[in-house]
């Protein structure tokens, strides 16, 4: 009895101590998140229900009217389609290309490290800077791409001024910028696959294709999953290159969620509708993240 009464407060004290330590350790991050993530989120939810131009002292509550305005607008439909097309194409091509290049660079080739460095460089560069360079590359008359196309007898499309080509141009830049990142991540993933699995596969009579299909791809699935989640989220937030290269145009051909948010908020000075776009973005990304965690994670093999 006395042993119990003595030990109970001692355990409790240690627990308290641990809890306090836990709180202490997480508090800097929690405070940062509260100030820069959760508070803006709550404030944005408020903004989405008011009519306000950022300048007026009057903020009028309009309930869900902003949602009606935004969600029923033609422009928002275009923006959603653009964002979806951009995300699907960009993520798919980046990941397939990244995997292909990673497999290639995983071979003992000459200049392998140099090639890796070159591939990774675009990822490190500032989006605004590369967008400026690409504007020149895409110029239909004196641009680098026009010259290369000219060698093969093709006429350069008017990349950035033609609504039918602007999205393609943007995709080229984003894929070029992000492929290197996928390569590096995939290369790291390839190192983690147990070589004995390949040996076993070969003994079982698997050719190069069979080895790739049954060993490499399953072995890379956690990496692929990670890349998928981060790439999709990044695509939804694409802004810098769009702002510099196309400004959402021509005629909204490259207008996507974040640019549209910027347009509503800072060009048209409509805090409410801009808040709605942000809320939609938040909800879509939340759903995507939950779906990805729920369904894809189950099929991913963690060795």
């Amino acid at each position, binding site marked *: 009895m006395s042993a119990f009464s003595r030990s109970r407060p001692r355990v409790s004290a240690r627990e308290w101590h641990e809890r306090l330590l836990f709180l202490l350790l997480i508090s800097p991050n929690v405070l940062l*998140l509260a100030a*820069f*993530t*959760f508070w*803006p*989120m709550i*404030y*944005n939810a408020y903004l989405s229900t008011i*009519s306000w*131009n*950022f*300048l*007026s*002292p009057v903020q009028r509550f309009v309930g869900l009217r902003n949602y009606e305005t935004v969600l029923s607008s033609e422009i928002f439909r275009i923006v959603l389609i653009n964002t979806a097309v951009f995300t699907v194409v960009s993520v798919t091509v980046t990941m397939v290309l990244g995997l292909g290049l990673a497999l290639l660079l995983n071979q003992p080739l000459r200049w392998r490290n140099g090639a890796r460095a070159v591939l990774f460089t675009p990822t490190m560069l500032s989006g605004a800077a590369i967008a400026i360079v690409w*504007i020149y590359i895409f110029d239909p*008359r004196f641009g680098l791409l026009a010259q290369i196309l000219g060698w093969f007898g093709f006429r350069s499309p008017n990349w*950035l*001024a*033609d*609504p039918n080509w602007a999205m393609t141009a943007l995709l080229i830049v984003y894929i070029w910028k992000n492929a290197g990142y996928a390569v590096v991540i995939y290369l790291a993933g390839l190192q983690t696959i147990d070589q004995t699995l390949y040996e076993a596969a070969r003994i079982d009579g698997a050719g190069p294709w069979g080895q790739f299909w049954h060993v490499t791809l399953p072995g890379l699935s956690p990496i692929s999953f990670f890349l998928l989640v981060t790439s999709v*989220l990044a695509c939804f*937030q694409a802004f810098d290159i769009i702002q510099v290269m196309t*400004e959402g*145009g*021509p*005629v*909204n051909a490259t207008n996507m969620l*974040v640019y549209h*948010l*910027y347009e509503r*908020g*800072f*060009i*048209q*000075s*409509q805090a409410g509708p*801009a808040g709605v776009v*942000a809320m939609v*973005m*938040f909800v879509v*990304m*939340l759903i995507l*993240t939950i779906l990805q*965690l729920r369904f894809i994670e189950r099929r991913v093999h963690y060795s």
Partner: protein
Amino acid sequence: MAKVTRRQFLRGVAAGAGALTLAACGGAATTSPTAEPTAAPATAAPTTAPATAVPPATMPPGSMGSTVEITYWGSFSGVLGEAEKATVEAFNNSQKDVKVNYQFQGNYEETAQKLTAAIQARQTPDVSLLSDVWWFSFYINGHLQPLDDLMAAEGVKREAYVDVLLNEGIRKNTVYWIPFARSTPLFYYNKQAWQEAGLEDRAPKTWDEFIEWAPKLNKEGRSAFAHPSAASYIAWLFQCVIWQFGGRYSDPDFTIRIHEEGGVRAGNFYRDTTQTYKWATTPKDVTQDFVTGLTASAMLSTAALAGVEKNAQFPVGTGFLPEGPAGFGCCTGGAGMAILAGLPAEKQRAAMKWIAFATGEEWTIEWAQRTGYMPVRKAAVESERMQKYFAERPNFRTAVEQLPKTRPQDAARVYIRGGDQIIGKGLERITINGEDPAKVWMDVKAQLEEAAKPTIELLKTVEG
């Protein structure tokens, strides 16, 4: 249990990261370089005079009073940016009482966006450059200082300014916006291309004439004409064209007229230039295309003149805008300076001193010669120095000669917030997509009417 909690916690954090984009938008307010932290909030009493905070290094030796520092936000880059910086330096060197700290904020739109954020953060500059489509928003929301008393104290007379230009900044007989970098569109042409095509060395008198000329100017690798994008203010140039075709964007009371007959005719003309005649292009940067010879002519701001003359490899000609079926039409544009409301009295005086210099008779001549903007003072236009310069560089004269024929822009573009871009995006649909102007203008009309509502409401409460 603890593990699950942590996992849930992290998951919540990951979800929250999605909302980071929101924080990024608000970020403009916190990261933009703003005025010195002593700038008083609009509501504060003007007793928080921070003049004593001036570091002693800037104190001129032997001066009696202390130097008042003010912050000025500007918007120019390139040739214009250098001229703007020179303006500040010349002012700072000309006297010891006021020191202007020049802060470049990006283009007109970016400057206005940052000023909006700065007002929210209560970290405004003292003086800001504001473009034709932006100053009114700040005025109507009560963020601009009435200037008449300050002008009187500084000995600056209304009559000294070119009337058309100053009048645009007057509301209810009070000056809020003083003309500084004011422009009109001009017709620019490449004299070499003109000569090759066997054309008379002048701008076309009418659009009909240009329709005859254009096929001769148009060839592989060079278009006859070019339209800018919405972001490069196509709606400013089209303001003139819609007048030339007998239409208008709106009435002064915000009744939208863009969809009426004249507007549709002007829209059809614009569509034809790219879709039917196919001699006009829609490049990313019209000025650059003109300078590099990729387009033989364009409507550009007078402000482009100094840069164009400097960079073009061919002789440049300028002329009045061509006339349309309804005759001549041309508007003014550009930017002026405004003082933010609620500054301490001595900062207000200092700010006015700076504006009086920058838009003063002497400097406006210098400024006009460095940039191509119009001199904003009557005496400057007539001055010997300016006349001599006009004789040497006749292109600089065009804008001043055209000025008496100009008129202020329609309310829909300059007073409706975002109106410029709404019209501009509509014009992109017409010139780039080749959509039917009648249909596009109905969409634009609806958008303009929606966007005008808050302005009309505010106007009632502010001006009655």
